[in-house]
């Protein structure tokens, strides 16, 4: 009943323009994500250009009808490179998120549910990981693994483990304390049963919405690592690498930086929007 007062003052986007219950912005975000997914799955459907081989006589051309995003220093169509780079960009972000979710999630779940010494030890480890700035941690890890995109992805994942462990732990704690978990125990459920059938599914929810958010963050972190030179070499065309490779030509050919950046922004923004919408729907 408290809630009856709530929306009076709040300016939260409870309404907004809607189509079939979905705000327009969210619909656009979904569209962007759909396009990116399609790029990742079947890049050849979206461009006729070869992402690896260009016409060297057409190097560093600005955006035009023939080359929407212009061409790079070897005369390759930038849009084609972005499109073909989608798969690996998405995959590396997925790897990063996967590591964070699986490792962090397990740590947090076990710590939160079993408590005691397990919790104390995990908490210390997580404290240490949290105390190191995540980007710094990613840089240190990637420098240890070697400067390749997959390693940047792993490093990004590792650097996010602590956050996930913490969220999962607090969620697991919360769920563990709920009445329905107690009820399940009253109904004769064993600890493992309760952990797997009640705690895990319910605790995962906010972890999953965090994971969606982390996907966008990972794209940015990996791009940041690529910017500092910790990514794959060309002709790989991950978005971050494109920006990083393009920055040397920023003055004469700014599109080499801004076009892939815009793609990153659009995708990350869309993911954020969708994630926010999903959370609001919960």
């Amino acid at each position, binding site marked *: 009943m408290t809630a009856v007062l709530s929306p009076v*003052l709040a300016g939260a986007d409870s309404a907004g323009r809607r189509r079939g219950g979905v705000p327009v912005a969210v619909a656009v975000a979904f569209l962007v994500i759909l396009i990116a997914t399609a790029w990742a799955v079947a890049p050849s459907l979206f461009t006729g250009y070869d992402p690896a081989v260009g016409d060297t006589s057409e190097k560093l051309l600005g955006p035009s009808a023939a080359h929407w995003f212009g061409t790079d220093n070897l005369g390759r169509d930038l849009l084609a490179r972005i499109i073909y780079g989608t798969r690996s960009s998405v995959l590396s972000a997925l790897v990063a998120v996967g590591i964070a979710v699986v490792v962090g999630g397990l740590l947090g779940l076990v710590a939160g549910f079993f408590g005691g010494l397990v919790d104390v030890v995990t908490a210390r480890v997580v404290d*240490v990981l949290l*105390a*190191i700035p995540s980007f*710094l941690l990613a840089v240190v890890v990637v*420098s240890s693994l070697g400067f390749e995109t997959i390693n940047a992805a792993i490093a990004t994942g590792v650097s996010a483990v602590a956050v996930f462990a913490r969220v999962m732990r607090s969620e697991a704690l919360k769920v563990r304390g709920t009445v329905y978990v107690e009820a399940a125990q009253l109904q004769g459920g064993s600890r493992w049963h309760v952990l797997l059938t009640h705690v895990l599914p319910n605790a995962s929810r906010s972890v999953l919405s965090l994971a969606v958010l982390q996907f966008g963050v990972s794209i940015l972190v990996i791009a940041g690592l690529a910017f500092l030179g910790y990514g794959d070499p060309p002709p790989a065309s991950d978005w971050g690498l494109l920006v990083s490779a393009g920055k040397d030509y920023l003055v004469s050919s700014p599109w080499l930086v801004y076009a892939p*950046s815009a793609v990153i*922004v659009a995708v990350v923004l869309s993911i*954020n929007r969708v994630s926010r919408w999903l959370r609001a729907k919960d």
Partner: protein
Amino acid sequence: MNSAYPVFAAKRLGQAVVVVLLAYVLTFVVISVLPGDPLTSTLRNPENGFTEDQIQKMVEFYGLDRPVWVQLVEALGRFVRGDLGISLRSSQPVATIVGDALPSTFALAASALGVALVLAFAVAYGTQVLPRRAAQLLRSVPALFLSVPNFVIGLLLLNVFAFQLSLFSVIDPDAPVATFFAAVALGIPVSAQIAQVLITGLDHEFGEDYAVVAYARGLGRARLFFAHLLKPSALPVVTIIALTVGELLGGALITETVFGRTGIGSVVQTAVTTQDLPVLQAVVALAAVVFVAVNLIADLLYPLLDPRVSLFAPRRAAVPAPAGDEARPEKLSEKASVR
């Protein structure tokens, strides 16, 4: 502050020390599996033309051929004694390198935090008092800020303000104007996080009964914002600020590169590319120290800001029990939230 304080402080301090030491060890372990080290990589520069023999001699000289754990124990021993060691790269004391870089990064991080706070509060204020359309638009600003790669913001700012408008020069990146723009680049993503927390807080507080009740009592929105909502919604910001300290340090890596500043970020950059283990370890330990310290301060500050929270005493014990015969409704909130 009662007698529990020293115990509490000692415990927190102990925890902090453990965290810092573990961070030091962790860096060592992570970097020890590196291919090579700064020394051999300079020696192997083909322009040098060293023979394997010559390289081997140097490696032995630096003790880089000894088992990793021996190196770790020695490094840890030195660290505990306050000796950060010598950079493998430049042969300078690590303490000097880090110490020299610190002021610039500190200035950058502090200004970035300032910029972030101002921006965040402005955006948050706007979302609550502007007309709906504009407020709605402003609400997407933090998400946008969070989606733009840090370096793109930096490159853009630099291009426009340093090169087009000549407001500052990259030659003197520590000048106030230059620091300001670097701080903007670094502060924007951080401001987004603060703004999000603030907006969520404000939305929540605006939705709280007391806000509605105060509003129904005849307060205007702006007065409501400043008199009632700002403080409670700004409280979580204290925690967020403590957490973003790490973010600022991490972000400095990129911002300093873009703006040509020399600070902790560029020290890390060089240390990583040259695998300068002692420097990296020192920076990580420093980051951990800063992080732990700032969070400790935040923890200590919180009870001062929020009368509901007390570190040392159980809640409400400081006040005599409510007089009269009216028992405290223990489970108010539970009952209230039932429907």
